[in-house]
């Protein structure tokens, strides 16, 4: 394909950055653990997007490979997170992170 129809890389990266920041803010402001996990998912996928964009620029497969790795990581994170969540739910009957924070810093 030719230069003309290509989206410049910066725009892709910018999109990824926006997604990333949204995820980050979600992690920071959300109180519900499930939503926090989802925001982390968003952040990780933003990274994946960034990798794919970058890979497209270099026309190399590395980007996609990293994306697969990221998918795996995200899956692992989230499944462990859900497991812990279930435990918390069993013990506290809530998934509000504040009520799950009794340790005083």
């Amino acid at each position, binding site marked *: 394909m030719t230069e003309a129809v290509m989206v410049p890389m910066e725009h892709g990266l910018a999109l990824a950055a926006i997604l990333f920041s949204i995820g980050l803010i979600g992690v920071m402001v959300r109180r519900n653990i499930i939503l926090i996990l989802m925001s982390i998912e968003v952040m990780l996928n933003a990274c994946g997007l960034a990798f794919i964009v970058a890979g497209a620029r270099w026309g190399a497969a590395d980007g996609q490979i990293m994306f697969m790795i990221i998918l795996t990581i995200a899956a692992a*994170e989230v499944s462990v997170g859900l497991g812990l969540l279930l435990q918390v739910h069993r013990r506290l009957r809530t998934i509000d992170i504040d009520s799950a924070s009794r340790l005083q810093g």
Partner: protein
Amino acid sequence: MSGLQLQALLPIITLSSLILIQMMFIAFARNLRLTVSISVIALLLTALSFFPMVDHLPISATPLIQLDGFALFYSGLVLLGALMVTFLSYDYLRDQGERQDEFFMLLLLSCLGALILVSSNHFASFILGLELLGVSLYTMMSYPTRGLFTLEAALKYLILSGVSSAFILFGAALIYAIEGKLGFTELAGMNHTSAASGQFILLMGSTMIFAGIMFKLSLAPFHLWTPDVYDGAPAPVTAFLATVSKGAIFALALRLFTTTGLIDLDPLLRGLSFVAMVSILAGNLLALLQDNVKRILAYSSIAHMGYLAVAFVVAGKAGGQIMAMEAASYFLFAYFLTTLLAFSVVTIMSIADHEVDTTNLGDYEGLFWRRPALAAVFTATLLSLAGIPLTAGFIGKFYIFSIGVAAEAWLLMAFVVIGSGIGIFYYLRIIFAMTKAPRTDVKIEIPTASGWVAVVLTVSLVLFGVYPSPIIDLIGELMISFG
């Protein structure tokens, strides 16, 4: 894939296959003793599997793994830490009810992650190792059925380390976008790209990676999670987190920043020395306010990471690199011994208690009269943390001082001196608490495995504090074949 490269992968292969075997044993013949002995065998075999390749270092097996003296040294540390933690957690979990076996499997898994991390030479292996380490680590944290705190600690750590991994990944993506490479060695000398935009994105990327790593090392602006997690997690897991996990990540950070020349980015270096100062100050000052031994240890570990960051800064300065690496390696070695010992004492104290670990300063009052040996060991540990002679910690502190003075980083040195001064205060508080009159005279049982761990660690702590030359020479030899 040549035989040599296969040889380089041998430790990883050994460990993972033994993990599978252990898994099968757990599935079909669940028996705690058996599981633990398999873990020990696995760790020992892995350690052995390093020896064949000692003569032909450095080997780069696949672009992902780079085995050199540096990696070898830190792998040794990781295995040591994992072994000690295995013994500790055996005593800790033994009478915690059924089905504790998986814990040891997870321990091996995160040890595998750490091994990958210390020898990784590519962002892919970096991320994989990091996650393998992290995911199994917070599973370990939440594993024992001890109150709620463990769960909260695990959740906090999961969320924060998830975020920091995301940061690292995004940074890596940005760097990849500019450079088109992911291997550390190919990235070497990269920050000479022409375009200003490239420079900017590059700087942003490396800053994000930097931030992520600071998170994991709990350096000062990003240290908030540390005390909660240290306090909440069961003592052996805290020991693992404090030593193996941090050590591996530090090793990787050192390799990453030095080989890719990221360290030469001036803003990064300045940020780093800032981080070092803040961590030293914050760690020591906040520790003063605590009445909880685990939290004190948490803050003191923040301060120690600050001292390590000094080595980092010096590594960035011209010429100082090899010396700084040597210093960092010895300091980390001493830190491993000391921290493991400290947490083994905490573990021994906590075994009797089933709900939460015994970590209040009050519980340690009169230890000198109840269990003189244990108290003496703990005193040695604290003195080593404070960097007093006769202990390995002193030599580590001495190393930091010498590189700092050699690099003429006077401001940093001032912070180190002040920090150490404050540090003495709270370490002595614990020692003094132990010399008070005992509140109870409940007998403290010292289980065999942990007892032996404590003995071995104490002996080496004093030995390498008085006669450090063997380790120094070893490090010197290994560092030669770096990169």
